[in-house]
């Protein structure tokens, strides 16, 4: 393999801007797949990804491109497209020398594209600007070209205009990749140094580790080690990434491929870690490695108590493929046995929930998500609290600190007022505001993560008619008036409904939960009081009046059996509810509480 003919690149794009379609087209042009033969979007191989139209896990594929009588090797490294996975994105970018900046001709650059672009520039990637969807009505090709050339400081003539869907402009783009993206550096004779940019669990083969070779050569049979853990393995298989794994004998500086080495668990092969040989290995790890850090915590409980063991096994299986999930056992008075789980963000939580339902057929209830607070106690200690159940008595607390994020919002100018109001409601502190072009604005906020995890993104989309885009990253911890609100049903505290929030929001939120429960819990033979409390203080209440009617008017010969069955069915329905005190609370109530409006 001639290093000079290798091109390692990725595609930076916003959701729906056509990244996967472009990837498919590149695969077709280089004869990896036949046009129209396969299912659309080869790189996204989880059903869920295809449905949500997003890439959750990154993948990579090798293409061979003939040009000027030379055969180039293109390694296309796919990147996840959501803010929850920005660390994974950064490691994918670190594996590349170039990036295609893909922009929808009708949409322009979005906030997250922008932040990934900055990440790419930080990694010294050569950027090839590409305007996609030039064929669709409503495409403002000129405007998009102008915007992109302004942003990147390139000539408008250097911007590629394509339609991935129609195949327009793909060949010249393939030529552009060879021309503009530099070949990788590195020397195959140096001590080996490889970056793990992704890994996944295969039921038959164990963990497949995707690597980018920076220096040296790794061969089948080499004894290798991981820098972060010092654990040692043997390279059992090494090769390239086609549509399937293509085993070979070695990988050298500049190449992208995979190794299989008896690793049982993806959490051992962490993204960003460095692999080298035990003998004559490199001395230093590659920079940028981070431990996965959950940002959002939530309780996960099986909808049916008897599914607990299945849930335990399913989570363990999910973790084989997703090292960023963390979980520990938890038990709730209201929901029974379950798990306290940490996620990279809300999307990540949604994905895990969906996968449990679809792949493992396990319906679950999640509790109100939380961030991790640092709680300083009167005895001088500081506790990390992400579970309201563990929130100490207010009398013992001297200070609570909450995580703050740096938030970037890009939005057409006319929605700025709405965005500012929303951000203010969410305790955002505006840092600056810049015009990207005549019509679009980038606003920078510092905002508590707690305010972002509750439907902030949805609200942002709705106040901007879908035009605003969002990116955020962790900033620091700051002091805040955080309280724990308990929910009482007929005087009984429902631990699974407790939540932590800013004191100013406690009343509205508490009232809203009480009202939601009033609408979700069916009437009983007696009156039910619903209360929200901070400690012993009731801050909001709502009431469900006693049931007045549940009666069958006619009950004679032929009706008797039918009526009995009807009542049995009603009784069965109650058995599926959680009994709190003598109140039957439907599962839906727990779900509805999660969706309660918090503003």
């Amino acid at each position, binding site marked *: 393999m001639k290093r000079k003919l290798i091109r390692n690149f990725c595609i930076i794009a916003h959701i729906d801007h056509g990244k996967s379609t472009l990837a498919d087209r590149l695969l077709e042009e280089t004869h990896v797949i036949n046009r129209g033969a396969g299912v659309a979007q080869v790189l996204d191989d989880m059903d869920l990804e295809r449905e949500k139209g997003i890439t959750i896990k990154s993948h990579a594929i090798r293409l061979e491109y003939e040009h000027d009588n030379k055969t180039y090797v293109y390694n296309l490294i796919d990147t996840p497209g959501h803010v929850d996975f920005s660390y994974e994105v950064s490691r994918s970018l670190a594996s590349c020398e170039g990036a295609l900046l893909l922009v929808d001709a009708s949409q322009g650059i979005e906030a997250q594209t922008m932040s990934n672009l900055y990440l790419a520039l930080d990694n010294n990637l050569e950027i090839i600007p590409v305007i996609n969807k030039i064929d669709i009505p409503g495409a403002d090709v000129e405007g998009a070209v102008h915007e992109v050339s302004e942003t990147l400081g390139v000539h408008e003539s250097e911007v590629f205009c394509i339609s991935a869907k129609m195949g327009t402009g793909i060949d010249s783009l393939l030529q552009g990749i060879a021309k503009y993206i530099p070949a990788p550096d590195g020397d195959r004779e140096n001590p080996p140094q490889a970056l793990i940019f992704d890994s996944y669990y295969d039921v038959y083969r164990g963990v497949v580790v995707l690597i980018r070779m920076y220096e040296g050569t790794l061969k089948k049979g080499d004894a290798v080690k991981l820098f972060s853990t010092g654990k040692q393995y043997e390279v059992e298989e090494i090769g390239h990434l086609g549509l399937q794994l293509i085993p070979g004998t070695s990988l050298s500086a500049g190449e992208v491929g995979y190794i299989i080495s008896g690793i049982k668990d993806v959490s051992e092969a962490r993204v960003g870690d460095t692999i080298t040989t035990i003998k004559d290995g490199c001395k230093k790890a590659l920079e940028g490695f981070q431990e996965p850090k959950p940002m959002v915590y939530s309780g996960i409980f099986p909808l049916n108590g008897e599914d607990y063991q299945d849930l335990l096994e399913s989570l363990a299986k999910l973790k084989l493929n997703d090292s960023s999930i963390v979980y520990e056992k938890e038990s709730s008075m209201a929901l029974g046995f379950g798990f306290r789980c940490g996620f990279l963000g809300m999307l990540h939580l949604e994905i895990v929930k969906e996968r449990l339902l679809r792949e493992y057929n396990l319906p679950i209830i999640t509790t109100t998500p939380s961030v991790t607070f640092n709680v300083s106690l009167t005895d001088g200690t500081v506790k990390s609290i992400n579970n309201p159940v563990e929130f100490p008595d207010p009398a013992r607390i001297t200070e609570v600190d909450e995580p703050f994020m740096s938030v970037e919002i890009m939005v057409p100018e006319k929605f700025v007022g709405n965005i500012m109001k929303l951000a203010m409601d969410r305790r955002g502190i505006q840092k600056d505001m810049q015009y990207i072009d005549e019509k679009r604005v980038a606003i920078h906020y510092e905002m508590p993560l707690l305010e972002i995890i509750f439907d902030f993104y949805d609200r942002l989309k709705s106040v901007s008619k879908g035009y605003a885009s969002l990116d955020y990253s962790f900033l620091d911890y700051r002091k805040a008036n955080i309280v724990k609100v308990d929910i009482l049903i007929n005087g009984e505290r429902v631990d699974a409904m407790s939540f932590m929030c800013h004191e100013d929001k406690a009343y509205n939120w508490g009232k809203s939960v009480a009202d939601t429960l009033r609408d979700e819990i069916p*009437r009983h*033979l*007696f009156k039910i009081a619903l209360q929200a409390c901070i400690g012993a203080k009731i801050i909001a209440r709502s009431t469900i009046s*006693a*049931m*007045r*009617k*549940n*009666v*069958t*008017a*006619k*009950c*004679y*010969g*032929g009706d*008797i*059996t039918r*009526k*009995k069955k*009807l*009542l*049995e069915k*009603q*009784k069965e329905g*109650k058995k599926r509810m959680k009994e709190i005190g*003598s109140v039957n609370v439907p599962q839906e109530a727990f779900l509805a509480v999660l969706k309660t409006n918090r503003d």
Partner: protein
Amino acid sequence: MIYIHVPFCIRKCGYCSFFSVPLDRELQDRYVSCLVKEIRQIGKTLYPETLYFGGGTPSLLEIPEFEKILSYFDLSHCKELTLEVNPATISSDYAEKLRILGFNRVSIGAQSTDAGELRWLGRIHTHEDTVNCVSMLREAGFDNISLDLIYALPGQETTSVLQSAKALCQLQPQHFSLYCLSLEDSVPLAGWQSKLPDGDTAAEMYENLCDWLTVASFSQYELSNFSLPGFESRHNSAYWNQVPYMGFGPSAAGFTGERRYKNPVSIVDWIEMVDSGSREWEHETLNNREQEYIMLRLRTTIGISFAEFSRRFGVDFQQKYSDVTAFLEKHSMLEEDVTHARLTRKGRFVADEVIQHFFIDDER
């Protein structure tokens, strides 16, 4: 006790979920022949204490048809022979002949006195028909007349219900059945389900009606039934006492005390079943019978007799259900004296909810 289902109507009412088909002479002939065949299959003469013709519209049967059907029973022990009557279907002559045949009780589907309400319900009669019907029956010698009243119609006010009740009361019936309207998914008026008065309004109507009937000297003896002293329906009371009964005709049900059956809800299927001479029985577990007994008895104002309960099921009601009764008494749904447990007035309109508390699984 015997129930006979007559599945013919001139026109089907939009709220009704009982089995009936449009009137058809030829089909009616086949029905009567088959009914007789079904009765004869029992293989012995039946001498019921009560016999009840329900429907459908049983008053569409002709006198000779009744004559034929009744000839297969020994009515010497029969204390109550009831016919359900649609007020638009009878004449003085018909009434007199019914009396001669031995009918001693009629139940009239009056439903309302308001012309608009009757129209909406899809009834073929007017209030005037009801008035005439009652006077013809009375002249024929009937002194045990029951009137049905339906309440909680969409948009109905409590005052309108009470007006109907008062106007019907002036006809001096001996018995009232009050039915809170419910619309099953299968009926033509099902689209109105969401427009029915809410539970609070329906409950208020029910309570007002109960109060008013009490003032008019009627005593409540079951959730939906009221009578002057001594005019309780023996036939229906027997159902609530879990007495064995037989049902003939399509969709009719029967119960031996341990096993039950339900005839096909189709004339053709029912004829086929009778022709084949075989019937599907379902065994009822003791636990099921016990729960059903509680369900039925709690509908009555007498309630559950502890002695009778223990005799039937071999268990002490008060002991077995002490947790349930304590809970229900705490919320004033149930009351007990030394011999009986019964629903309170407050518990009646939520009877279905209360009864479910007694559905405790056991192994029997």
